């Protein structure tokens, strides 16, 4: 009797899980069909609804970017591609379409600094993971060496190697987190947004930003954000004219 109850509960749980999983997939398929039929607005609505429900997948943002691209909303298209790449830095389709969208919009990009270029072969999460693993290997090696009363060169060599990797990985992760693709990265969604010297519409311009241009938000004051601009200057832009890449 008890076994039957357990089996029934497990079956019920699997059924619910499959229904819940099937629902976003169905909506995604529906949005794709709308896109194929040329109804880009409906497709955008459906994709956006999935985004709002927390289904943050690289493919969803990629498809959403395509839909915006078709609507000639290059700012949001670039934003969506950037989000797809933030979730999966090696998304080839998103990379390709982002390049095309940037060319179309003449969008400006932030320049990666020297360290970002050096550490570009892995992303922030991979470095954090490498740092964690190398740290514990290093600590265990040190413990082995100390508790083994300094016998053997193997543990100490391994600990030096691991802790060196740890330091490099932490540095890389830190640099990438505060760099071009870090937490403050935002994309200008409006077209020809003026970055200004002060939080006033009549303040002097620093730079005119085409839609899709990258900026790095430094701080926010009221309806204005203070951001690093692609020309390495800083300026104020209206907060509703740019969206952060990382949700």
């Amino acid at each position: 009797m008890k076994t039957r109850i357990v089996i029934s509960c497990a079956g019920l749980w699997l059924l619910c899980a499959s229904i819940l999983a099937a629902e976003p997939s169905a909506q995604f398929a529906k949005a794709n069909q709308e896109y194929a039929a040329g109804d880009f607005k409906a497709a955008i609505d459906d994709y956006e609804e999935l985004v709002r429900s927390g289904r943050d997948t690289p493919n969803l943002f990629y498809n959403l970017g395509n839909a915006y691209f078709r609507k000639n909303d290059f700012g949001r298209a670039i934003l969506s591609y950037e989000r797809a790449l933030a979730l999966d830095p090696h998304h080839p389709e998103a990379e390709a379409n982002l390049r095309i969208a940037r060319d179309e919009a003449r969008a400006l990009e932030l320049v990666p600094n020297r360290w970002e270029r050096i550490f570009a072969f892995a992303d922030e999460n991979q470095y954090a993971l490498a740092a964690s693993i190398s740290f514990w290997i290093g600590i265990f090696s040190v413990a082995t060496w100390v508790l083994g009363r300094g016998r053997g060169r193997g543990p100490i060599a391994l600990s030096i190697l691991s802790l060196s990797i740890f330091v490099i990985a932490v540095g890389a992760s830190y640099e990438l987190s505060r760099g071009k693709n870090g937490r403050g990265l935002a994309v200008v969604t409006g077209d020809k947004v003026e970055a200004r010297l002060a939080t006033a519409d009549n303040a002097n311009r620093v730079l005119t930003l085409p839609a899709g241009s990258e900026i790095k938000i430094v701080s926010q004051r009221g309806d204005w954000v203070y951001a690093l601009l692609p020309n390495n200057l800083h300026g104020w832009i209206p907060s509703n004219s740019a969206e952060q890449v990382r949700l």
Partner: protein
Amino acid sequence: MSMFRRILFLAPLAIAAMQSSFAASPGVTAVLSNSQPAVGQMVQLEIKVNGANSANVPETISIDGLEIHQTGTSRQFEMRNFDVSSSVTYNYTILPLKAGQFKIPPQTVRVGNDSLRTPELVLNVAQGSGNPGSSAGSAQSGQSTVGSKIAFAELVVAKKDAYVGEMVPAEIRLGFDPRARGRLQDGPELSGQGFTTQKLQQPRENLETIGGRTYQVYTFKTAIAAARPGKFEIGPVTAKAVVVLPRRPSAPRTTRPRSPFDLFNLDDPFSDPFFSDPFGSTGERTELPIQSETAALNVKPLPPNTPPNFSGAIGNFTMTADAKPKTVQVGDPITVTSTITGRGNFDRMNGPALEDERGWHKYPPSSKFKQDDDVGMSGEKTFEMVIAPNEKKPAVPPLVFAYFDPVKENYVTLRSTAVPIQVEGGAGPTAATAPAVAATSAAPTSTVGVTPAPTAKPQDILYQLIDLGRVRSFTPIYARPVFWIAQLASFILLLGFVGWKIRQAKIDNLEAQRTAALQQESGELLRKLRRGELSPQEYFSNASRVVRVKTALVKNLNPNAVDAETAAKAFDLGEHERAQLRTLFDRSDELRFSGSGNGAKTISSEEREEVLRLLESLRA
């Protein structure tokens, strides 16, 4: 007569002779320090009488348009080859009150009974700028003479009218009477709203005579730029300085001897004798706030017909451009270097833009500025922009740079010529032609910029993906709870590992102690056995104990649990040794249980040797 007495006798005669010699030929000269001063610029007159210790000279010289006063006397003695000469110099200060040519007539100087006359002197006084605020040109200034004549502050703004964002040169001048030994404590600061100021540079320091007074003047250069149109009050300039002022004595002023500085202004604080003799009295250090007047600046808005590439540059500029390398593959970077040279607001200047960006992937430019002046208004700014062709291109498109010329009051667009390049690989060219000039200088064109119409067919994006894929998080891995749970688990694992290792070490330590104790016991017993002082009971008991201990060490056993067979097996003994061992254990048991009275009371040396050989042969 001794030599000493002779000297005493001759010395007065020699002195008298010398006195008579220089009294015999007195002469007089008169010299002006400057014969062509401006109005208000002080001139020194020196009347020098040679061959005399003193003379009667006029205290004042009256000439209309000049104010002449005697300021002091100095005496000189000179001895050359026993020829002693003396002179006395009378100093006068002349203050020209008006322009023109003045003749200082010969003055009569009485030396003893002689009467000498100075030569006639001519002074040409020019109409000059006596006041510190009267700067030349269109400059305007705000001046203050705070602290009477001790210090002043002055703001000189080069223009009265400017455009929004235009850099206007400005000078801040702070002057101190050198005698006050003024030292800046705070500032200078230029207050006011609606404009930005360039950082003040290190001041230039010089001595200037202003209104007949000499000032130590510090000149700070800067530039101001208005952020919005309107009428602005620039300044005032404020500063705080520490000056040294004389302490006011309680005695009435009239009793004080006149100082040379007190000739024209009896209120001068430096008329105090302290300044005549700074070491003879003490001064008082006083903090002195200095403030200038404000200067007005009328700021006009920029004209409305802004060219598309205008990014706020105001001034007068020229541009050159070049691109390297000239031969690339599709997608390879090309560095386009453009240099803007001239005078204007370089700090707000963005780099030139490509006239036609289609088919190019471009990165924001980097820039460096080399200034030619103190405030960064003049110089050259070099922009480096990296671009990569997405397809075959015959040339790097022209660069376009727009600025506003405040002199001509219109916008100017500079356009470089295209730089021909060779792009290999990829699709054919889609862009237009290129002139055959590599590095070119740009010429100003019309005031309206041109935005090229797109000529290339836009590339199409890739397909939709049908798989929704796995949900991922934007949160970095180190900000997720699971990451820290994993770290905690690793930490617990580390603690377990450390605990286990410590326990192992403790166990190893106990085993080592036990082994050492057994080895020590074995050694002790063998030494006793060799000495041969033991009774048979003790001897065999100890011998059997040695066997047990050695076996326990080899087999890691409890020594008390070892018997003859175990020991023989542990050391892999032959039959003979095995029998000996059994006999040893039997003798030991027999003696232990039967008592010491049975059998012989001593052990023969042969038997002892035999037992010792057996014990020493027990090796693992």
